[in-house]
């Protein structure tokens, strides 16, 4: 290799190193600068917003752009850091106050055309902008936001999907309306995300999950079954019966068996017995589980069968097996001696 090539490569590597170091320094400087700017303007923005909201309260039906404070706020929005600061403050006010103040804040949003900007962002090809759009729409509590949340609840990007689902649960009238879409698919992660949001929100009305048991996507059916169990929805019994009768998917059957046991659904006993009698429906694990479930809801035949003919090795779950054996020990002795 000629010496000139070696020196060119060396020069390139050294330039690369300097570029990376400058990049690190620049990023740090940017972050520090943003923090400094935010700290510098925080009190000023708060005071300006308070004044603006106070002014809007009196002139809510007039041209708000004429209010000097609003004019000032709109001018400040040209700086992205300060704009973010204003938005954060507005969202904070929306979440803390009620009544007149919130009305004024919403009027301010519309005057500053935040909603159109947010909608435009939700349609962006850039992931980060779509997320920003959703956050902005939920911050504003824009009445027409739901359709955008539903659209983005099935986004190909997981982060966008997560944020849209959360926003929908928090702000839409029907928190899980995106499940109505027959194309909606849920991963286990989505299910956990939804469930944790539902459990956090005390005010959200939990829907009857039975309505999604005939969904075309199996993942939605499974999620609904998990939620029926979680929220003990006895109202879903009819849909459960139908699904149990027609389904032969092992996970679906397993989830239904869990529900029968936890909710003590004695009404489902004939369905389980019928499935058990037809040997094709259950694999070995499900067969044992079904026996346990029948035993739990008081089927004495199942109890006898479990005690006399079931080999110990089938009992995999240590807690279940030890609890079961402890509970039935006297009876088992009786059966064995009889």
């Amino acid at each position, binding site marked *: *290799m000629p*010496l000139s090539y*070696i*020196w060119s*490569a*060396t020069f390139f*590597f*050294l330039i*690369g*190193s300097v570029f*990376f*170091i400058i*990049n*690190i*320094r620049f*990023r*740090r400087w940017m*972050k520090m600068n943003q923090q400094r700017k935010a700290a510098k303007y925080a009190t000023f923005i708060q005071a300006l917003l308070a004044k603006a909201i106070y002014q809007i309260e009196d002139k809510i039906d007039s041209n708000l752009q004429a209010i000097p404070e609003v004019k000032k706020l709109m001018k400040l929005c040209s700086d992205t850091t300060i704009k973010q600061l204003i938005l954060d403050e507005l969202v904070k006010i929306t979440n803390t106050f009620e009544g007149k103040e919130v009305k004024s804040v919403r009027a301010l949003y519309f005057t500053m055309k935040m909603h159109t900007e947010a909608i435009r962002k939700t349609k962006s090809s850039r*992931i*980060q902008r779509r*997320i920003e759009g959703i*956050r902005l729409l939920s911050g504003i509590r824009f009445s027409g936001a739901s359709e955008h949340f539903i659209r983005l609840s099935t986004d190909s*990007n*997981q*982060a966008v999907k*997560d*944020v849209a689902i959360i926003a929908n649960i928090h702000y839409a009238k029907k928190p899980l309306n995106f499940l109505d879409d027959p194309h909606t698919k849920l*991963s*286990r*992660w989505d*299910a*956990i*995300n939804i*469930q*944790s*949001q539902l*459990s*956090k929100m005390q005010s959200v009305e939990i829907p009857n999950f039975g309505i999604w048991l005939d969904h075309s996507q199996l993942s939605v059916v499974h999620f609904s079954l*998990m939620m029926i169990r*979680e929220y003990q929805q006895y109202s879903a019994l009819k849909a459960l019966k139908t699904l149990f009768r027609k389904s032969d998917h092992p996970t679906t059957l397993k989830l239904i068996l869990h529900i029968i046991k936890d909710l003590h659904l004695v009404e489902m006993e004939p369905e389980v017995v019928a499935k058990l009698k037809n040997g094709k429906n259950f694999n070995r694990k499900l067969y044992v589980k079904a026996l346990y479930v029948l035993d739990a809801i008081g089927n004495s035949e199942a109890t006898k069968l479990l005690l006399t003919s079931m080999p*110990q*090795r089938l*009992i*995999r*779950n*240590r*807690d279940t*097996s*030890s609890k079961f054996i402890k509970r039935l020990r006297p009876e088992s002795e009786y059966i064995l001696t009889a």
Partner: protein
Amino acid sequence: MITFLDYFFLIYGSMVMISYVILAIISKRAIKNYERENAGISHALLNNSSILPKVTLIAPAYNEEVSIIENVRSLLSIKYRKLDLIIVNDGSQDKTLEKLKIAYRLKPCDIDFKKEIETKKVRCVYRSEIITTHRLFVIDKENGGKADALNAGINVANSHLVACVDVDCVLEPDSILKMVKPYLQDKKVIATGGIVRISNSSKVVDGTLVEARVPKKFIERFQFLEYLRAFLIGRMGWSKINGLLIVSGAFGLFRRDIVLKCGGYKPETVGEDMELVVRMRRYMHEKNKKYRVVYIPDPLCWTEVPTSYKILGRQRNRWTRGLMDTLKFHKKLLFNPKYKLMGTISYPYWLLFEWLSPILEFFGLFYLSYKIMSGSTDLVYVLSLIFMVYSYSFMLSCFALLQDELTTFKYTGRKDLIRMIITALLEPIVFHPLTIYWSIKGNIDFFKDKKAWGEMIRVGFN
């Protein structure tokens, strides 16, 4: 005069350099994607969910009486709703078990488990009687090594996912939640690894890392830089193209059913972490099942690295032997198209660039010295060549520092950056030759059939 060897070293060297650049580009993309996917997600909130899958954390302990109580406390502080913790006392000769018995009021418990992987005899399984630590199990077994201890833990575990961790590691409170996420998003994931960071000089309070600091000593800083390059460039890059062959033994999460089907960790090797991942991948290929092995760029696990060159040398020696063991056990993979990317790219890369590279570097230096002494090459030319490689290495280290800045932003001080740049300048001339020496020694020991682990003396956390 240009000989065949000149061409050989030139082509080989260029290939090594290009491969790292490609990995760096891929890893940059992988990290960016990860940051995007996880921006603004509150992992703590997800812990409220009752439908989270159960995870069992398995940590083997051997003669750890000095720090075992603090270590277990640290592991118990992990925030995960459905977590069982299994400590495997691998026939310790000190008071490890006694200390655990007293501190956590352990009582023998009657657990029904199937010995699906063959291990040394399990004497007893204990469970904590304290309500707050009731999820703690301790297995007392005869000594059989780390792999055997992990296998015993996997046998007893009662969950679909198992996390294998070094008992002295400090895990981030949300580490399990982050590790579990890829499984929940994609059913094809069979193993997940997390970035292991160096905790030397950092502040640890009650088993939790409260302040990350750049290590003070040069030996620690060299390793710090090396870990950054290995994890943020190498493993992230391989993970992105699903060609990863190793999940660090310090912290990894696996699907238990696949581990069982593969027969668990192999006790005969000192590189059990890499060997298991390669075997799991092989199993999936042979069964014609789609799968993924994923790495997460977030700092999830903090570990203490050796602070003396003697102990570090032993560790590196073991790593070399472990790598050679794995390459030997799975030699069938080499350029085997049946194993797709693993057989055609990953395995050859590890063989040619990870194992062979230090050996060729060693002989390359000898060859250059010979050429200078025999007068067949110019000293200026050789020095220019060495300086080029040096500047390349420095650039790669700077890139790793930038990646670290993007993922953690934990070392924000200006002094920290200057310290790391100085370390990056010194590393190729001070530390790298030592790693070559240890690697060569590891190769010799491998052929001598040496199986020792070598002891690790820990300083403990501040």
